[in-house]
């Protein structure tokens, strides 16, 4: 045990001193922040869209209400005032139609005129480029908008136009049916309210607090995945380095395989725990300062159904299983390139739970999820979601026992593989070793 501790200590301190640790530490918060801020940055870095609206509906729409283009202009102006200074999408700037577009009397003619502006062949009078041209035509029974943009792959602008135009269409139809503006306004008030209730919710009625456990479970699973990959990755690299430097032989002449393997797993695990503590501590501090209510909700979510306990238990067993596999793979590799080849199948397996995690929030009790959660390579990642869904203690306990047994079995096999790989006289072959093991 003393030797295992010495090896663990060396593993821990040696990686703590490398720039790689600090980079790994920053990757998660950076990735999270970028996922939130990134789209806003992209939207803000774009110039505001410059839109020309050509309304060909004036002959078809009743004169008692505004035209759709006038209504749209009002709503866009309101939106511009409301969003000024915020970090969201840039407000749409309405631009007077150039003469050749304004003179068009059919959608086809307007489209033909718009092409020149959207391809950059022509510019507006102020020299600016046009971002989009919306041609409205039809009547209140079939109002249509042809939206011309230079980038067909983006559909954001159409969403920003359809919302106010749908409201206008509703009001126009009501006006045609003889419903006055006051009544129309009253109709829009007190619309149906669907209230969510669940016996699993604390107060019966579902609130954000009740949805937090499921969200927290998914975040914890992603965290577990990241930490497992980090710890196991560290282990893999050090084993390859020790083989290349022949340190492995010195270690094996000084300690048993189990001492070396457990020391390495312990050291890399301590490293993963350090990262978890720093990330968890940082998040807790940030939340408690920025939003104490959310912080309290998160704490309650982690405590509900013993989520944090089960997470810890599945973290330990999952980490032990994957760390052993990675260490064994490392012992069969001479170079990082060898490792890439052998890691391919493991990475495919590790990707599967990630694919199902996103869908698990909405369907935690889906049969496929319940089944996959019992497949040992996926259990550590998917069982947290089952915890949040209120799985029985028996289900969770049995899964944990299965995981513990699997982890022990994998560690024993990995220990044998590690010894064979680490001391192979020639270039070790993992496939041959597995075939030999199966034959036995």
């Amino acid at each position: 045990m003393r030797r295992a501790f010495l090896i663990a200590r060396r593993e821990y301190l040696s990686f703590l001193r490398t720039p790689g640790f600090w980079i790994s530490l920053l990757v998660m918060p950076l990735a999270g922040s970028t996922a939130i801020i990134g789209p806003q940055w992209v939207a803000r870095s774009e110039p505001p869209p410059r839109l020309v609206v050509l309304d060909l509906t004036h002959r078809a729409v009743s004169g008692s209400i505004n035209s759709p283009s006038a209504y749209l202009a009002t709503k866009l102006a309101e939106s511009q005032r409301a969003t000024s200074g915020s970090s969201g999408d840039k407000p749409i700037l309405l631009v007077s139609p150039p003469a050749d577009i304004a003179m068009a009397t059919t959608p086809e003619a307007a489209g033909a005129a718009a092409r020149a502006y959207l391809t950059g062949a022509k510019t507006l009078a102020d020299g600016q480029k046009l971002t989009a041209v919306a041609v409205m035509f039809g009547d209140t029974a079939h109002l249509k908008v042809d939206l011309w943009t230079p980038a067909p792959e983006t559909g954001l602008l159409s969403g920003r136009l359809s919302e106010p135009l749908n409201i206008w269409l509703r009001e126009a139809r009501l006006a045609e049916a003889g419903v006055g503006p006051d009544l129309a306004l009253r109709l829009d008030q007190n619309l149906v309210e669907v209230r969510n209730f669940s016996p699993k919710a604390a107060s019966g009625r579902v609130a954000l607090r009740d949805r937090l456990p499921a969200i927290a479970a998914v975040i914890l699973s992603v965290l577990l995945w990241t930490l497992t990959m980090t710890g196991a990755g560290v282990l893999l690299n050090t084993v390859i380095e020790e083989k290349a430097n022949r340190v492995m032989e010195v270690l094996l002449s000084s300690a048993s395989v189990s001492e070396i393997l457990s020391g390495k797993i312990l050291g890399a695990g301590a490293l993963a725990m350090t990262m978890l503590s720093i990330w968890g501590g940082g998040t807790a501090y940030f939340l408690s300062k920025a939003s104490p209510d959310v912080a309290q909700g998160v704490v309650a979510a982690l405590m509900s159904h013993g989520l944090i306990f089960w997470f810890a238990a599945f973290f330990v067993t999952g980490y032990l299983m994957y760390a052993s596999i990675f260490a064994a793979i490392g012992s069969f590799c001479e170079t990082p390139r060898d490792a890439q080849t052998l890691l391919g199948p493991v990475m495919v397996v590790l990707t599967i739970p990630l694919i199902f995690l996103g869908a698990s929030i909405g369907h935690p009790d889906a049969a496929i999820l319940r089944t996959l959660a019992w497949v040992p390579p996926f259990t550590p990642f998917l069982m947290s979601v089952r915890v949040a869904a209120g799985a029985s203690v028996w289900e969770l306990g049995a899964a944990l026992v299965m995981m513990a047994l699997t982890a022990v079995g994998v560690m024993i096999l990995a220990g044998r593989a590690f010894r064979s790989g680490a001391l192979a006289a020639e270039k070790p072959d993992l496939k041959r070793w597995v075939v030999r093991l199966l034959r036995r």
Partner: protein
Amino acid sequence: MTEIAVRLQHVEKRFGENYAVRDLSFEAPRGKIFGFLGPNGAGKTSTLRMVLGLVVPSSGRIEVLGATDSRKVRDRIGFLPEERGLYRRMTPADAFRFFGGLKGLDPAKALARGTALLEDQGLLHALHRPVKALSKGMAQKVALISALTHQPELVILDEPFSGLDPANQQSLERLVRELANGGATVIFSTHVMAHAERLCDKVVLLAKGTKVFDGTVAEACAQVPQALVVEGVLSLEQVSALPGVASVTLQSTLEEGVGVFEARLGVGASANLALREAFARNLDIRRFESRSPGLHDAFIKITGATSSSAPMTTEGQAA
């Protein structure tokens, strides 16, 4: 306490159908320097790994420091693998603490001993420099010192002179001698004969996994007849007639009828006797040179390999 540090009896190691070591028996006496010689692939590293307990023999018995399971005495053994055996980012100070600690030594004590040994080698300035910043010779010495901080009774060195310059080889030889003088048993493998000749009390020669010789360096060399170079106005018959001469060849003829002959003496024959007899017979001799065979010659003689095909070197370079 037994006088034998390492004893192998009929040890074999197979990898599938291939024999790495076949029916190997030898004894390494305590407090001596023991050379384990042979070309690459002869089975040296496999044997050392079995002695260290890293690899289990397919059959046979191994006894190390009185134990049949060397893992039980691993704290009394120091091991230097071929090519460093150090972490590149580790400093010598950390290496002494870590590897000494693995051998059961208090890290502070390991550092003190390692530092003292490093100072003996004139490398104290490297104590806190990472290994990757050291020259190969310096790193090799640091690796050896790391294996010695716990003052092992048995030191096993796998190709310790490999890749070192002559100055570092000499310095490492001195360190090995000091170890033996201090009472440790040193077993080292090499394919460089000169080191074994200078250092070893006893050698085992391996070829293709099989022991071909076991004894002292002198005994190995005695297996090869001494050679003479005789230069003078002589005939082939006159040189052949000298006592102890087994065979003679004329190497070249110089001006004024002077010939250069190479004569092989029979096993146990004396060059001095041949010289005395040559003077007694008043032979016109200009040069009489006795060439003692070395371990390299002995290996070639013992294995039947030709000099050009033998994958071993006589001095300082890898085969």
